[in-house]
């Protein structure tokens, strides 16, 4: 039997018909993690599982004296959400993406939405960051057109989302990656708020972004060390390639 290096463990009720799955992993500006955490806290999502792997750093998070896995699964109604407080090590990226997408397929997911940031060097000068979409699947293309979301047309994606996009395409899963213009090296709650506005329209849920703005400074300070750790992992996976000129299709 083939050994799996990454596994999703369900500890609560995850039996949902055609769920939508939001994914927030540490990446540029920690946009996905900030927004996913915000959704968990403000929408009253319940913890229903976790992702485990021998390839992840051996970490357990203590909250109110109880241990929690750093890469957790949450649910509210037909919305499932995966959020990680650890940067995915490059060695674990392929297996993590495969396991997440195989699991999403087994749940007959209607839409998978990785959320994150795309680096912009002049972020200081941008008041409201733009959000770009990478749609996989015909119906998703229509969503992007209907909501007038700008397409990420040319460029490179490096990291866990690159593999999730590739796996979704291979498995015929509908996937809408939303990336907001973000500081490359600093936690960016403003970028998370920009994605939240688009995400709430696409999946028709209410996300109150005002706490993201009001608590932006606290979020930036709390996320400092995760950002530092994520930068190291991004360097190891060659994230700087996202700045490189395209070699093909030009």
């Amino acid at each position, binding site marked *: 039997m083939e050994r799996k290096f990454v596994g999703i463990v369900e500890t609560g009720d995850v039996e949902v018909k055609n769920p939508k799955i939001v994914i927030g992993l540490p990446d540029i500006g920690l946009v996905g993690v900030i927004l996913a955490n915000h959704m968990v806290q403000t929408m009253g999502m319940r913890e229903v599982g976790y992702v485990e792997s021998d390839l992840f750093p051996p970490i357990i998070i203590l909250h109110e004296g109880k241990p929690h896995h750093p890469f957790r699964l949450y649910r509210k109604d037909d919305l499932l959400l995966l959020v990680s407080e650890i940067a995915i090590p490059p060695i674990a990226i392929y297996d993590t993406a495969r396991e997440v997408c195989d699991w999403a397929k087994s749940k007959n997911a209607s839409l998978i939405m990785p959320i994150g940031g795309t680096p912009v060097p002049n972020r*200081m000068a941008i008041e409201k960051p733009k959000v770009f979409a990478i749609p996989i699947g015909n119906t998703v293309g229509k969503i992007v057109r209907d909501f007038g979301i700008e397409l990420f047309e040319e460029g490179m994606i490096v990291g866990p989302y690159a593999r999730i996009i590739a796996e979704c395409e291979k498995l015929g899963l509908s996937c809408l990656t939303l990336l907001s213009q973000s*500081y*490359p*090296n*600093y*936690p960016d709650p403003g970028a998370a708020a920009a994605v939240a506005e688009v995400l709430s329209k696409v999946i028709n849920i209410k996300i109150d972004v005002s706490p993201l703005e009001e608590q*932006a*400074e*606290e979020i*930036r*300070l709390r996320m*400092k*060390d995760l*950002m*530092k750790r994520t930068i190291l992992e991004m360097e190891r996976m060659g994230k700087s390639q996202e700045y490189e000129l395209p070699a093909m299709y030009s």
Partner: protein
Amino acid sequence: MYERRRRGDSFFEKILNYFTEMRREMDEFVESMFEAMRFSRPDWDVETCCIEPLVHVENTPESVIVTADLPFVESKEDININATEDMLELLAEMKKEVRFERWGTIQRETTFRRYHKLISLPEKVLPQEAKAIFKQGILKIILPKKFKTTPIKVE
């Protein structure tokens, strides 16, 4: 001949595998050394209520650009920057105390009031010609390089 080549390949493969394994072990050792250096001390100090900010150093052809994320710092008056040719010291006061309660063991109820960071610069700079701006909680310091390049004409 085929057998001989195979034996030869096998010998070289063994050597190659040996060096590959040695290289991997060295990489792991170097990585663990860096890891130990990075995390041998926390980037905060309970006694002085100081925390290190996130900083990024960019080496461009003309200058060294240092940025720092300074949440809870209100204005440029709260920031002090000292520079030498190859070192930058950054101090900044927060507009309010930031308290972390029920966190860890030794650092329980830690309060932070200021940022402090010493940054080694990748090249010698002209500190007296440096410029700094503070916007949206991000500090950007542009330090012109001491050794400017001289253009060479292509004949």
